[in-house]
């Protein structure tokens, strides 16, 4: 009886030891697995973190580039606009001065030739010399003396406001041609603005 009890105890101890060993192995293996999983998770998060970090840095760079473009772009435009206004102001002053000088110029000498060439050009454009000629009060005498070369033309009693030159009209009033110095300057202005601006140091 006593021998049997001892045998049973020993077998129970062996079973318990076996279970303990098995459990220990399981626990250790689980711990190893958990450790390896956590390493894996950590490794993955490092890559993910690095990706996120790179993305944030790239987005930041993009945003900075955008802001730089905005700031540089708008300040360039502002500076350019100020320069444009300054140049335009200077060009206008040049024209005003030129107009002033032309209107105060002497009506003797070559001026009669200028009026003749203006009349010549105008009658050619209208295709007839049977025209009524308009001019300002200052040029009336010069124009009147030139009209002899243009058969059928007559000087209107009305005067017009201009620096100089002539405006002609067909006798029926259907066709008009403006060949005043004012009109010439208006037509010339866009063409010579660049030359004037260049003189002020604006790059071509």
């Amino acid at each position, binding site marked *: 009886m006593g021998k049997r009890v001892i045998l049973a105890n020993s077998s129970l101890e062996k079973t318990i030891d076996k279970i303990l060993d098995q459990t220990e192995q399981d626990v250790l293996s689980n711990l190893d697995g958990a450790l390896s999983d956590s390493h894996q998770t950590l490794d993955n998060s490092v890559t993910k973190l690095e990706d996120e970090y790179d993305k944030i840095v790239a987005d930041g760079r993009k945003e900075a580039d955008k802001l730089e473009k905005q700031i540089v*772009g708008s300040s360039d435009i502002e500076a350019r606009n100020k320069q444009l206004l300054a140049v*335009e102001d200077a060009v206008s002053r040049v024209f005003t001065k030129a107009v002033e000088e032309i209107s105060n110029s002497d009506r003797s000498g070559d001026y009669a030739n200028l009026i003749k060439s203006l009349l010549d050009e105008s009658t050619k*454009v209208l295709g007839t010399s049977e025209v009524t000629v308009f001019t300002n009060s200052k040029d009336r005498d010069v124009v009147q003396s030139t009209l002899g070369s243009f058969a059928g033309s007559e000087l209107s009693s009305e005067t017009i406001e201009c620096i100089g030159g002539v405006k002609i009209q067909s006798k029926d009033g259907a066709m008009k041609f403006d060949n005043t110095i004012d009109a*010439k300057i208006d037509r010339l202005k866009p*063409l010579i603005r*660049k030359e004037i*601006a260049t003189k002020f140091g*604006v790059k071509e």
Partner: protein
Amino acid sequence: MTTEGGVQYSKIAEIKGPLVVVDDVENAAFDELVEVETNDGERRLGKVLEVGNGKAIVQVFEGTTGLSISGTNAKFVGKVMEMPVSKEVLGRVFDGLGRPKDGLPDPIADKFIDINGEPMNPEQREYPKDFIQTGVSVIDGLITLVRGQKLPIFSGSGMSHNLLAAQIARQASVVGTDDDFAVVFAAIGVQYSEAEYFRKSLEESGALKRSVLFLNTADDPAIERIITPRVALTVAEYLAFELGMHVLVILTDMTNYAEALREISAAREEVPGRKGYPGYLYTDLSTLYERAGKLNGKKGSVTQVPILSMPSDDITHPIPDLTGYITEGQVVVGRDLFRQGVYPPINILMSLSRLMKDGIGEGSTRDDHAEVANQVYDAYSRAQEVRALAGIVGKAGLTEIDLKYMDVGDVFEKEFLSQATDENRTIEETLAILWKIVSKLPKNEITKIKDKHVEKYYQGE
């Protein structure tokens, strides 16, 4: 430009819609510029449409409202309409006739160029083959724009084509070269708020510095719209072929241009063609679209993106129909995607860039570009079929592979197609998203990509 003046005629025979008929006119020329002076001294511009029998028919750009037969004079200026051009036009805002709208003086001109342009000698044309990055994934990835190409955007009323136009104008660039790049933006008959949006959008992004804006708003005379694309293209040609820049021209909305053409045609009592548009609509549109291109021996290029809103979303309407014959592909904005809130709502299955194949690949974008684009195109097409099937049999009736394609369709729309209006994606970012979509498919479904590319870029299981 000449310093000679023109003859002023005072015998106005008739005023009919936007047209003025002048009597007893001698020596007028076709397309000659005309200054129409009203009773109170106001001057409006026009051009000669027809001459003969002592009469000239003049089309007044600013409309004939307020003109009367007595007291109106027409001065034939003796030259065609010209646009003053120089590098200074960059950063400027003009109206539809090319007059400054930004409170600044006229640009100091290097040249005055006829706005009707010189037709390009076909023999001198160079085949377009260089990529333009718009920063919009769906265009760069699947409907690639190439320098010198004309690629229209077909949209419908109320859709987000103007947002897209402004985004392209802000973001477009040429990659891999130091060449100068410029954008010429012509708004034709747009609402005031839209015009302001375009201006502000370019100004605030700093892109105005390299842009030229022509704004013709809806309340401007319709006839002005005939001129707007022409002045814009004249400036673009100057920047491209004289200054060697790569120029992207965006014309929105070409439907308004065609409406103006119809108005003039009706006033001239011409025999109407389809939907009342003139029979020469095709020829007229081609005179604009064909001004895009590259020339042998010249550094620059003119690329066109005309935008048109299709009346009733009808792609067979004469304007998109005739445009499609002339241009090299089309980008179609889809109503369904727009209703779903997708931006940009581009329907890729109806869109195509005919020159894409020449502008992508090794040396331009990346060697796998064409293949991955084809695969995604194919997968999205299949996804649409599966969606239609799911609408009938339900999701439960779909196979596993069908479900994967459905997933591809969703990722395509959410991650690739959808993009914020201020999001500028590089071509590398775009290709990375395309590979993300392809990687949703099992490897055995990838049939259009070489193995070496699959090995390198595939991220699936």
